[in-house]
């Protein structure tokens, strides 16, 4: 079982990924983001996107109902269905689903984000949470009949409410529960970069210890990403590769190990 995480950047070669995947034998599941699309849609609709940095330095988006609406439009609507359309066009029988659909991915609501504001430490609650359970029956039903699930946030929480979550955590959960053989993360860069502004600074390999060390050194979005990657590495998947989602045949290149090997 191959798990393909497609990043939410606008530079990703979605058609190339669809064409490449169509050539594979064996089943796969796609998990995709759409953060660039969400941000531009939020701007155009005048929906404010507030970013919170927790006291321990992790960055997250304040997910209120309006932002979840924008995510439903950007992730579950536009990006999800355009990926399904591309895959169908290349002969892959894709089915687009969010965590809500058939309760595919159940999440647990975050208890509260601790932030520093106006010299005080405050608890901010929002509609976000961590993935805790996957509906393996629904996945099995679809995979068994040759469908290719294309999965994205939101998840469904313990109150049956739509919540935002980190797609990388969903990948880690899916990988552990389905014992994926390989997870490839296709992003808008040649791999994990030592220096985000230097495309030549691809790190060839990142061990779990190395991930933990770097996680301790940074704050914000990257800290969040490194944590999710560490979880993925700890999920027991045999092979995790971060590779360039913009090239002609992103999946083939990733499977050949061109990019950053994790673990």
């Amino acid at each position, binding site marked *: 079982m191959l798990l393909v995480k497609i990043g939410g950047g606008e530079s990703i070669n979605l058609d190339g990924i669809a064409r490449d995947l169509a050539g594979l034998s064996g089943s796969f599941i796609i998990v995709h983001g759409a953060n660039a699309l969400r941000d531009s849609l939020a701007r155009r609709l005048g929906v404010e996107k507030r970013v919170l940095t927790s006291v321990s330095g992790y960055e997250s988006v304040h997910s209120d109902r309006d932002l979840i609406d924008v995510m439903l439009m950007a992730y579950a609507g536009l990006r999800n269905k355009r990926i399904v359309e591309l895959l169908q066009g290349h002969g892959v029988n894709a089915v687009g689903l969010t965590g809500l659909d058939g309760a595919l991915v159940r999440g647990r609501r*975050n208890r509260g984000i601790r932030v520093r504001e106006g010299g005080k430490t405050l608890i901010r609650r929002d509609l976000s949470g961590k993935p805790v359970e996957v509906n393996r029956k629904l996945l099995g039903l679809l995979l068994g009949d040759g469908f290719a699930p294309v999965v994205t946030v939101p998840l469904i929480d313990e109150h049956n409410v739509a919540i935002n979550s980190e797609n990388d955590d969903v990948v880690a959960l899916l990988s552990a529960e389905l014992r994926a053989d390989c997870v490839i993360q296709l992003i808008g860069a040649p791999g994990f970069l030592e220096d985000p502004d230097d495309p030549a600074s691809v790190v060839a390999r990142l061990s779990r210890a190395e991930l933990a060390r770097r996680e301790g050194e940074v704050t914000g979005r990257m800290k969040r990403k490194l944590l999710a990657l560490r979880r993925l590495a700890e999920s027991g998947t045999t092979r995790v590769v971060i590779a360039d989602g913009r090239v002609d045949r992103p999946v083939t290149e990733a499977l050949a190990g061109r990019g950053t090997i994790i673990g």
Partner: protein
Amino acid sequence: MPECPVCGAEPMISDDPVEGELLECEECGVELEILALDPVTLGEAPDAEEDWGE
């Protein structure tokens, strides 16, 4: 003055309390959260496991 829900003491409230503000009960040391204002209502703060969102 609002009481600590755990030990009943009256914790010190800042002069510009904000909803969601965290504070400590000097008596029993438990971490408290200001759940509401007018009147100030206190509750035990959620434990600080992963303290960030998505």
